[in-house]
């Protein structure tokens, strides 16, 4: 088990919070809460050791230069593949978006 932290520049705080997924085999739980304006902070607790690079690449692809909302993101991962992680993150972001 490993705990990892990431931070990205962001826009204004999201207006609500969201929880999606479950700490089940091949899945993960994502909790989004409004953060401080300008910053997206992500904390990952994962059952898979040595996966920091994989998480960093995934988040960079999603958030770098994308001006995401300011959020505190908690991820509890139980061996989800990058595809599942992205799906869950997009699902959670959709729930906090104002559209």
């Amino acid at each position, binding site marked *: *088990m490993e705990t990892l932290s990431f931070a990205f520049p962001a826009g204004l705080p999201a207006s609500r*919070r969201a*929880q999606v997924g*479950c*700490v*089940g*085999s091949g*899945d993960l*739980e994502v*909790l989004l*809460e409004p953060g401080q304006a300008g910053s997206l902070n992500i904390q990952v*607790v*994962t*059952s898979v050791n040595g996966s920091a690079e994989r998480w960093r690449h995934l988040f960079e692809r999603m958030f770098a230069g994308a001006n995401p909302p300011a959020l505190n993101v*908690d991820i*509890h*991962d*139980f061996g989800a593949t990058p595809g599942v992680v992205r799906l869950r993150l997009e699902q959670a972001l959709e729930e906090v978006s104002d559209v």
Partner: protein
Amino acid sequence: MSDLNALLHSRSFVELGARQRAAALLDQGSLRDLLDPFARVKSPWLEAQGIVAQADDGVVVAKGSIGGRPVVIAAIEGNFQGGSLGEVGGAKLAGALELAAEDNRNGIPTAAVLLLETGGVRLQEANLGLAAIAEVQAAIVEVRQYQPVIGVVAGPVGCFGGMSIAAGLCSHLLVTREARLGLNGPQVIEQEAGLDEYDSRDRPFIWSLTGGEQRAACGLVDAYLADEVSVIRECLLQTLEQPGEALPRSRQYARFLDLLARFDAAPQADAASVRALYQGDQA
């Protein structure tokens, strides 16, 4: 064509997660989470053992209404650690039931609905989980004096271990075909009795003995339902409306002890012989 339409518009209950299940059965918009995931009351024991914890410890407890009647609802998430109950999840479940009991003592007729998807006690939390399950059982017995305590076992995990006893204590128990209900889980029995007697990977055999259909045929549950949200909700509405006067099964122990005494355990039990025993008794 109408069958196809029904199929296209059906909404599976089994496929829903714990929170979705609770929300789907309550009156729309009435769900009020008690200790939601953002409260982050999670297991303090799992991470020390290298296991990732879930923010709500896999147990959703909420207040709400069904057909306008006040209920507490608790849903166990079967995908997190097999729906196992540890210290926190067990305390949430027991606490929800105790709230229902308190409401009733104060003249508010709150019923309880338990969505049971659990292998029983969480082995990583051992005695703390067992103690919590004992509290859950005591609380079920208390609440059922006032209002129905309706257990729903939908599957696919089923309901085993100490929580199968809790299911047995419920005033009403509803199952689907996907459900299983038994004291020991299949792998536990296989390990104890041997592969020749009980092959946990033989799914038709396992379901023939512990599945929802068999439990219904034996009169051990009150309703055998299709895996459809509206059907399960309708059954809850009816049960709350007309709970009936039947004695809880756990109060009928004399009848069950008599059945057990008459059962010949020498030949390997199968679905038919078990049904014959229970149905002979009902006739």
